[in-house]
């Protein structure tokens, strides 16, 4: 399975909808300090279900909604959609919900409103966070802490305590 496309709208420094297509192989994201590169990585971890506000560098989950700039007003919502292809789990899962068997593309989504209300989506239909977590677990994405390394965090695997390091290996075992 692989990433296909990320759509981001109203999330952090992206007030307008932006799309990034992922091919097989290596995608590089470049640009000057503060232009929004890490915000794109945050968008991916957020739509995959990240619950920790601190790891998204905020103080409240509301901090991920575009808060305005000199020239723009804040937006009312943040929305991120991530499309996957070749998702092995999708066929069995969607069949359980009545979608056609053999479907192998799937899109997870997440929305947050200023009111604090939030929604999770699979192929545009509202679902529970649990459904997304199950989907990812079945398709081999899981909660792999070692598959996403945030800025400045690469050293933590070395400075971690012996029992924390054990957890990393247990995750892979």
């Amino acid at each position, binding site marked *: *399975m692989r*990433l296909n496309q990320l759509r981001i709208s109203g999330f952090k420094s992206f007030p*307008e909808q932006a799309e990034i297509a992922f091919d097989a*192989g*290596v995608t*590089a*994201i470049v640009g000057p300090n503060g232009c929004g590169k890490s915000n794109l990585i945050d968008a991916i971890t957020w739509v995959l279900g990240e619950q920790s506000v601190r790891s998204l560098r905020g103080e409240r989950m509301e901090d991920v909604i575009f808060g305005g700039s000199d020239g723009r007003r804040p937006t009312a919502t943040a929305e991120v959609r991530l499309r996957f292809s070749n998702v092995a789990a999708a066929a069995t899962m969607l069949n359980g919900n009545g979608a056609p068997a053999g479907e192998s593309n799937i899109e997870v989504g997440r929305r947050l409103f200023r009111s604090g209300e939030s929604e999770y989506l699979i192929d545009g239909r509202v679902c529970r966070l649990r459904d997304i977590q199950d989907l990812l677990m079945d398709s081999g994405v899981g909660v792999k802490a*070692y*598959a996403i390394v945030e800025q400045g965090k690469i*050293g933590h695997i070395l400075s971690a305590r012996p029992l924390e390091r054990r957890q990393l290996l247990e995750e892979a075992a």
Partner: protein
Amino acid sequence: TRDRFKQAFEAINANLQQTFSTLFGGGSASLVLLDEADLLESGIDIIAQPPGKRLQSVQLLSGGEKALAAMALMFAVFKYKPSPFCLLDEIDAPLDDANIGRFVEVLRGMQDETQFVLVTHNRKTMEIADRLYGVTMEEPGVSKLVSVWLN
């Protein structure tokens, strides 16, 4: 389970020796069970020896060496249980040119099984990208994406 953990531990340990010596151009590293008798609960330590240097605590390594050793462990776990994709945000920041060259070689070796998304400021790292996205903020506070085709 005890056996499954033992199998993972030994496989990852073997991978670590290989990823470490590729990234460092030599040397050795391994994981150590703090309590060999207690496979179910024991914490895990890591020792590392860059080529030609003596074996010592990883804490004494330099900033760049620590990043490289951390990468070696991360890729060792990865080779045992690959994730479909891997997002790396500026992990090449503390590395000098020679080390970035070896880091790029390791990525080349893994990019067929794993889709990599790299945030970077480094030109050598950019060179292995199949596609490059530029992010700009011409209007302050507003990010825009520009796609740049490479290969």
